[in-house]
C-alpha cells in the first residue's frame, strides 16, 4: 500500500474520534431486502447496535454501481465482487486494505482463514452465493429439468422463464447449453463469435423470457406459476423451500458462484463506523449464522466447518450450500476480473440486444 492511501483513513479516523458518542446518525447500508435482509438484521445489524449503539438503516439495492452516486452516498454497500472491482478501479470506493481482521474461532490467522481471493483492496468477501436455475415442480409431471440446456429447451420444457435482466449469468448459461466446457466460458465469450453465439442462443427463447430485477421476484414468479423456470440466488430459493409445501426445486448444474462483498463508497459519511461494522460482521460467528439461515457459503474456512443445522427448520444445511461437493461438480466460478473490465461494454451490447429484439429474432 502506498503511504498516501492511508491519508484519508487517518483523516477520517480523526473526524470520528473528534465526534462525540455515535448513535444519533444511523449507519446507512445498501442491501438486498427480503429474507436476506431480515437475516442480516437478526444476526448482524441488531447485535451490532447492541454492541456499539450505532443503529443501522437499510437502503434498497438491486446490484449495480449506480448507487455509489446517491446523495448522500450509503456508508456501506453489500456488493457483488465483480462490481466492487470495477468501482474500485474507478476510485469510487475507499480502500479497506489496512482493516485488521480478527483470527478465526479456531485461532487461524485471518489471512489463512478467508477463502482464496476473498480480500481485495476495496472489498471484503463475506459469502459465496450462487445464481442457480430453479423450476416449478408442479409444472413438469413427467421428466423434470436437470441441466442448464433444459433452460433453453422450450420444446421439452415449455413455459415462461424468469431471468435476471443482466447479460451476466444468462450468457454463461447460453454457452454451457451450447456445449462449451465451463473452464472455457470466458475465453470464448471474449471472441466476437462466442459472444454472438450467446446472444443468439438467448434469442432462441426470447419469447419465453420474463425479466426480473429484484432478488425476490423469481421466487414469487415460480410460486405463482407465472414462470416454470427461473434464475435466482440460491439463498432465496432455499428460503422458499423451507415451506414444506414449496413447489421450488433447484438445478445445481451450471450454478454460477460469486463472492458477495462489503464495500465503503468513496463518498461515505461514516467511514470509520463502516469499518467497525465490516470487522464485526465478518467474524466466524456471524458468518456461520448467516450460512445456517441463508444457505450461502461462508467466506471463512472456520465458519464453513461450523455450519450445522438451520436454527428453526432443524435441517442439515450443508447440502444446501453451493460450495458443498454435492452441488459444485459443474459450478462456474464467475470471472470477476473479466467482468470488471468488460461489464460496461457487455451491458451496452445487452441493451442493444434487448431493444433490437425483433431484428435479432428475424436473423435466426
Amino acid at each position, binding site marked *: 500500500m502506498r503511504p498516501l492511501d492511508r491519508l484519508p483513513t487517518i483523516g477520517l479516523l480523526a473526524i470520528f474520534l473528534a465526534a462525540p458518542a455515535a448513535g444519533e446518525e444511523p449507519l446507512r447500508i445498501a442491501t438486498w431486502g427480503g429474507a436476506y435482509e431480515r437475516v442480516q438484521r437478526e444476526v448482524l445489524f441488531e447485535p451490532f447496535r447492541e454492541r456499539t449503539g450505532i443503529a443501522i438503516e437499510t437502503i434498497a439495492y438491486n446490484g449495480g454501481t449506480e448507487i455509489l452516486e446517491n446523495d448522500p452516498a450509503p456508508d456501506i454497500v453489500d456488493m457483488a465482487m465483480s462490481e466492487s472491482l470495477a468501482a474500485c478501479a474507478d476510485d469510487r470506493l475507499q480502500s479497506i486494505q489496512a482493516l485488521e481482521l480478527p483470527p478465526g474461532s479456531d485461532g487461524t490467522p485471518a489471512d489463512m482463514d478467508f477463502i482464496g481471493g476473498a480480500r481485495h483492496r476495496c472489498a471484503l468477501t463475506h459469502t459465496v452465493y450462487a445464481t442457480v436455475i430453479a423450476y416449478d415442480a408442479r409444472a413438469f409431471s413427467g421428466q423434470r429439468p436437470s441441466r442448464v440446456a433444459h433452460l433453453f429447451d422450450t420444446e421439452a420444457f415449455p413455459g415462461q422463464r424468469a431471468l435476471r435482466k443482466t447479460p451476466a449469468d444468462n450468457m454463461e448459461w447460453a454457452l454451457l447449453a451450447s*456445449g*462449451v466446457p465451463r473452464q*472455457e466460458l470466458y475465453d470464448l465469450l*471474449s471472441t*466476437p463469435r462466442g459472444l454472438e*453465439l450467446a446472444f443468439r442462443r438467448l434469442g432462441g427463447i426470447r419469447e419465453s423470457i420474463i425479466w426480473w430485477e429484484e432478488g425476490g421476484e423469481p421466487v414469487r414468479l415460480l410460486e405463482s406459476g407465472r414462470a416454470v423456470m427461473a434464475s435466482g440466488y440460491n439463498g432465496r430459493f432455499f428460503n422458499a423451500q423451507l415451506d414444506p409445501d414449496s413447489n421450488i426445486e433447484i438445478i445445481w448444474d451450471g450454478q454460477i458462484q460469486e463472492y458477495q462483498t462489503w464495500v465503503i463508497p468513496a463518498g461515505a459519511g461514516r467511514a470509520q463506523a463502516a469499518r467497525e461494522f465490516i470487522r464485526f460482521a465478518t467474524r466466524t460467528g456471524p458468518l456461520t449464522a448467516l450460512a445456517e439461515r441463508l444457505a450461502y457459503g461462508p467466506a471463512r474456512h472456520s465458519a464453513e466447518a461450523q455450519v450445522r443445522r438451520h436454527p428453526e427448520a432443524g435441517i442439515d444445511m450443508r447440502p444446501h450450500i453451493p460450495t458443498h461437493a454435492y452441488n459444485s461438480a459443474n459450478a462456474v466460478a464467475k470471472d470477476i476480473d473479466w467482468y470488471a*473490465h468488460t461489464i460496461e461494454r457487455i451491458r451496452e451490447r445487452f441493451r442493444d440486444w434487448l431493444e433490437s429484439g425483433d431484428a435479432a429474432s428475424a436473423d435466426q
Partner: protein
Amino acid sequence: MTEEREPPPRRRDPGDLLRRVLIVVVLGAVAGVASAVLANAFVAAIGWLNDLLLISPRSRMMESRAWLVTLAIVAVPTLGGLVGGLLHRFIPDGRAHSPADLIAAVQTRKGRLPLRTGLLTGLSSLVSLGSGASVGQYGPLVHVGGTVGSALARLFRVGVTSDNIAIACGVAAAISTVFHAPIAGILFAHEVVLRHFALRAFAPVAVASVLGHVTAQLIWPQPPLFQVTEAEVAHLWEFGLFIVLGIASAGVAVAYMSALLRMARVAKRMKVPAVLRPAVAGLGLGLTALWVPDILGMGSETLRLAFIEGAFTQWELLLVMTLKLLATAWCLGMGFAGGVFSPALVIGSLFGALFGSVVGSLLGLDLSALVVYAVCGMVAVTAPVIGAPLTTVIIVLELTASYPLTIAALASVALANLIASRYFGRSLFDRQLTERGHDLSGGRSRAILQTHAIGELLSDEYVAVRPDASAREARDAIVAAASAEAYLVDARGYYAGTVHLHELLSADDSEPAQRWCDPNALSMREDETVWEAMNAMRHFVGEGMAVLDAEGRLVGTVYESDLINAYLELLEQMRKEEHATA
C-alpha cells in the same frame, strides 16, 4: 567410418548392465523434468505475451480502447516478425530449426543437437507465437525438448545411441506436458523421432514422459488445450462417415503441406531481404486479421469454437479454414519461427465441423454432436502432417478421457495417413528432409549411408602411372604393388582412366597403356555419398574406384571391401540400437 563409436562391448556382468541401464534411465528422468519445466514456462510465456500485447481474445475484450486493439492487431505481428528476422541472423544456417532437423539428427545417427541453435529457435518461436503469428507451438517445444535431452547427454558423456534416446526423452516429456498426455508423449517419441521400439529406449522415454507429466502438474501448471463436455456417437453407421471424413481430411492435409512447401519456395524468390520477410508476413497477417481475427495466433479459441454447434455458419467454417491454411503457409514460408502442428489442429477441426455440418444438412440426418466430427477432422488432418497416427489418437483419448470419441477418431485416421503418404510423403518433416537430401523413405540404413561421403573411406593404397606410360611400365608397377589395376594420372594430378592387369597381360610391352583403358571404369567425386557409391558398384567388377576432387584430380581410392565393411558396421550399430534390451 569416422563416426563416434559406442563404448566397446565388455563382458556382460549383471552389475555393469545395471549400471548402464541406470545411467540412461537417470538421464531420461533429468531430461524429462527439465523439458517439462521448460515446456510449461514456454506456454506460460506465450500466454503472458499474448495478454500483454493484446493478441489473446481475452485481453482484446478486456481492453476498452478500441483504437489500441486495432493498432495492436497490425503492429504487434509486424514488430514480432522484425525481431524474429533479426534473431535468425544469429543461427548458423539463418533459419529456425524444426522437428525435421531433430529427426534427421536421430535417424542419421549424427546425434548432438547444438544448444545455441535450439535456444535461439525456442526464443524466436516465442517471439512469433507471442506476437500472434499463425504458427504452432508444439514444433518448437519438441525441438527445445530434444535439445535439452541432447545437451544433457553431452553432460553425462554418453555415446550416440544414448544421445538419441536422450533427445527422444526430451521430446516425449514436452509432448506429455503440453497435451497432458504422457502416453502420447511416449508414442510420439517412438513413432516420429526414434522410429523403432527397442526396450532400451522405451524405459528411459517412459520415465521421462511420466516424470515430465508429474512435474508439469507441480510447476506452472497450464490448462489443457481443449476440453470436451460430452461426446457420444449417436449411430453406429456414422463410423462409415468418419472413415470418409478421414479420406477427405487426407486431401486437406496434402493441400496444407503443399501450401507450406510452395510458400517457402515463393518466399525465397521474393526481392524482400530474408531478415525483413517475417515482418512483411506479420503486416499481411495483421491486416487480414482485422477482417477475420480468428486466424491470429495459435488459434486455441478458434479450435474450441469449432467444437460448438452454431458458432460458425458453413460458409464461415470454409472461409476461416481456408484463411488459416493460407495464413500459416504465409507466416512459416516467410520465415516466422514456429510449428505446423497447432494450425493443423485448427484447420482439421474446422474441416471436420464443416464436413459434419454439410453432410448432416445434405442428408437431412440427425448426426452425432458436431464435436465428434470436429475431433475426427482434427486428428485426420494432423496425423498425416506429423506422420503420427497413433500419437494423435492417443492425444484425443488422454485429453478427453472419452473412449467413444477416441474410436471415432481412430476410424478417421485409419486411412488418412496411408492416402496422404501416397500423394505427399510420410509426413511434412520427411518431405522437408528429402528436399535437404535426407531421404527417409528408403529406410533408415539408406538415410545413414546418404549422410556419409565416400571421402571418409579413402585409401591411398593405389597404383598411379603417367598417362603416357607404356604397357610394360604399367604392368610392372601393378605387379610390384601386388595389385590388379592402376590409375592413369597426369603430372598435375588429373585422373585420366583405369587400366587392369589382365588387359595389360595381352598387350605389347611398348604399346601405350592408355590404349587398354577400361571404358567402364568407375570414378566418383569425394563428396558423393556412400549410398551412391554402393549403388554405382552394384554392376561393377573390380577392386575399387578412383575418387576425385571437384576439379577432377585423383585424391585416392575406395575399395569395395571398405564399402561393404562400412555397411555391415552400420547395420550392426542399428541392430544394437533398435533391438538391444540394454
